[in-house]
């Protein structure tokens, strides 16, 4: 009962908090217009949005809520499969929220003081942050397809407001890239969902997975859905929004974007693809997915190290990491028997990546506004999650061990090599990111006990200790740490990466001198060809539309001319009237003759 209440509250609470600000604004009618002081938007209440969901994630026991009148009949569910996702997501959301209160303190103060422009932007953030959260929670908790899709769409579109928060040119570019790609994804998802759900006439995700297994064209449905969610998950080719949107978003928003929201794509895959079902027959798709995942993992790493903005580097790292996860999902498709074991590793990996990437993003803000900590303490703390992500320590090591073991057992040795290569890339990326952070570090110290550093510190702790508390498949992982004799096999990529990084660092000056162009590779890589293609397409479409328009107007003009002619002709008919008048009697006789003929012919 309590769990059910919590379930409802988990979704409702952020919405209530979202509505609070405008209601307050409306109460104080002129608040928007007057120049004077204004209410505080990002208060403690605001940050409390994910708390009920967190409580739900920690509440023992499974629960299901049936909502008859909701959409087409809602089924919200918390089961063991959803719990880890919910837990780490809400945790990160909560931390990011707390962090944001500190991060945006300057804007907050400006807004309160009466800077209308800033206040407006902040209002947007204050409204859309809980909304995005609500969407995210709904998509995690929903078992019925409409609610799932609703959550997904709400999260996607509300996050647009977070991306363009800065309201400058870059932000709008990032926002546009985000939105267009998201729309593309939404469309594919909708199409796939409709197709798959329609063939089995089901409303639940479970039914959907079965439907894909049963349906004749299940592979196509799965492919469409995979692509659709792939936009969110940053599959190579569809990832272009990530490096554009992440750097421009406020840091806490970047953290949730990269830590939680792109995981929604993964959640989508896990929810709709019949992973682990031997009857699915999706092996060809699986192989493709593996290949694409690896291409993404390696390619993003290579491209990422050319970036200057630390957030862009981290974004490419996300693409790379998601590529690895994609490859794992692909294995789940090609080798269904392996999935039950692999799924644990995937969840662990995803959670690890989410928390760690979150901590890294939060760390960027910290390096820009360092708290009053000695540098020897601050920078190792910043390096710690990076190393963890590279797989050298803590949760990174544990998750790497988890999937490596499974893969070896399943006979996918080659894949492990490739993934290790990707880990080398990750190490390089981490080094690059930290290097850029170091170069762009700030000097104005902020108090240590502010919300921002505390949230960051807590995030680091949570991220590194993840395997200890994350409930996977009914309980915490038994033995998360690899035995010591496995360590070399797990750690060599980090070593190699560090070595390469060192080489690169020394060779850097040389390379910079000779090949300046390398550093001009724009973030967003494929976005630019896409954009120009889209521009051409758009221009073509517009030309087509305009063509229709001009064709239509030409036709109209022709018709009008014709009409004028016809009117003139009709006006001219009156002259015959005179003849009729003059010839009335002969005409009468003519009529009589005609009638006579008619009678005669009878």
């Amino acid at each position, binding site marked *: 009962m309590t769990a059910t209440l919590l379930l409802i509250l988990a979704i409702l609470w952020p919405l209530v908090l979202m509505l609070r600000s405008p209601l307050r604004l409306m109460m104080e009618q002129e608040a928007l217009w007057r120049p004077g002081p204004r209410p505080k938007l990002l208060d403690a209440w605001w940050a409390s949005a994910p708390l009920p969901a967190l409580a739900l994630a920690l509440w023992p026991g499974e629960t299901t809520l049936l909502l008859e009148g909701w959409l087409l009949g809602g089924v919200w569910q918390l089961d063991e499969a959803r719990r880890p996702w919910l837990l780490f997501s809400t945790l990160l959301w909560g931390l990011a929220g707390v962090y944001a209160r500190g991060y945006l303190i300057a804007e907050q103060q400006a807004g309160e003081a009466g800077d209308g422009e800033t206040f407006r932007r902040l209002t947007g953030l204050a409204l859309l942050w809980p909304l995005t959260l609500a969407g995210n929670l709904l998509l995690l908790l929903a078992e019925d397809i409409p609610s799932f899709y609703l959550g997904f769409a709400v999260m996607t579109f509300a996050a647009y407001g977070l991306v363009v928060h800065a309201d400058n040119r870059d932000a709008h570019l990032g926002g546009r890239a985000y939105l267009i790609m998201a729309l593309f994804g939404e469309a594919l998802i909708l199409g796939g969902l409709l197709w798959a759900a329609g063939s089995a006439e089901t409303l639940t995700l479970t039914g959907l997975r079965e439907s894909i297994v049963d349906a004749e064209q299940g592979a196509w449905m799965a492919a469409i859905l995979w692509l659709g969610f792939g936009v969110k998950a940053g599959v190579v080719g569809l990832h272009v929004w990530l490096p554009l949107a992440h750097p421009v978003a406020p840091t806490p928003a970047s953290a949730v974007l990269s830590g939680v929201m792109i995981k929604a794509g993964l959640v989508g895959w896990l929810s709709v693809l019949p992973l682990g079902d031997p009857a699915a027959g999706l092996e060809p798709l699986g192989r493709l997915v593996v290949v694409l995942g690896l291409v993404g993992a390696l390619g993003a790493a290579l491209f990422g190290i050319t970036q200057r903005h630390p957030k862009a580097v981290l974004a490419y790292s996300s693409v790379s990491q998601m590529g690895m996860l994609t490859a794992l999902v692909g294995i789940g498709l090609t080798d269904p028997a392996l999935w039950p074991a692999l799924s644990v590793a995937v969840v662990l990996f995803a959670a690890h990546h989410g928390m760690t990437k979150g901590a890294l993003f939060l760390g960027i803000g910290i390096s820009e506004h360092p708290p009053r900590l000695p540098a020897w303490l601050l920078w190792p703390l910043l390096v710690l999650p990076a190393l963890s992500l590279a797989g050298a320590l803590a949760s990174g090591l544990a998750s790497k061990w988890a999937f490596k073991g499974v893969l070896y057992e399943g006979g996918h040795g080659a894949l492990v090599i490739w993934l290790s290569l990707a880990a080398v890339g990750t190490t390089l990326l981490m080094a690059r990111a930290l290097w850029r952070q170091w170069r762009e570090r700030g000097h104005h110290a902020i108090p240590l006990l502010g919300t921002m550093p505390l949230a960051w510190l807590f995030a680091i702790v949570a991220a590194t200790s993840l395997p200890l508390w994350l409930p996977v498949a009914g309980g915490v992982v038994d033995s998360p740490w690899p035995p010591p004799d496995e360590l070399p096999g797990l750690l060599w990529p980090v070593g190699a990466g560090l070595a390469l990084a060192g080489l690169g660092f020394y060779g850097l000056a040389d390379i910079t001198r000779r090949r300046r162009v390398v550093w001009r590779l724009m973030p967003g890589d494929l976005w630019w060809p896409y954009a120009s293609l889209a521009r051409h397409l758009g221009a073509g479409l517009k030309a087509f539309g305009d063509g229709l328009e001009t064709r239509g107007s030409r036709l109209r003009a022709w018709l009008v001319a014709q009409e004028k002619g016809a009117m003139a002709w009709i006006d001219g008919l009156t002259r015959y009237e005179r003849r009729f*008048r003059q010839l009335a009697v002969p005409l009468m006789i003519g009529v009589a*003759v005609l009638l*006579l003929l008619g009678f005669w012919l009878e």
Partner: protein
Amino acid sequence: MPPLDDVLLVTLPVLLAAFVLLDRHLVRACSLFVLFALAVALTWWKLGFLWLAMLETLLGAALTGGFLFHALGVGLAGRAPTARLAHARDPVPLIWRRGLVHLLPVLALLGMLAAALGSLPASDGSLAARWSGLVLIGLGLWAFALHTHLLRRLLAFNITGTGIFLLLMSLVGKTAPAAGQGLVITGLVVALLGTALGALLVRRLGALVPSREPASASDGQAS
């Protein structure tokens, strides 16, 4: 060889009608029309329709004539006729081609009538009346189409009407005299009323448009 009086009865109204319709002098034409009506009355009498003869004399000759003269502005008091009307020449000259063209519908009508009458054998006594009726119809219609002067068209209408009456009575003969006479009397009254109305109109038109010929005033629209 038909008897002389029959021939006379046929030819007299026809000749008079032709004069009425073709005379260029309107007062003379109207006077001739009175004569024509009297001749027709004679025919009625000859055919044995006394009532019709009386009515024809009264309505056709006296009253219609009176109205015609009224239209011309010629009164009993001997006022001089309105010069404009009395001596008016038709503005449209009589051209042969025009005349021939207007003959075509008349011929068509006569052809139709001939086709119908072919199956209705005429008794001896009525044959003359039938012929004169047919000729009068043709003449009247032709003149009606030909002329544009309103008064002349009224004359033409009257002559056509008379032709139809003659034809009617010749057809009816002795079979249904009452019905036939009823029709003819109605027709006579209507013709009189029509002529009266037309005559009054001609007068009014003439009074309204003193500067213009009433005939040409109605030229464009009338007909």
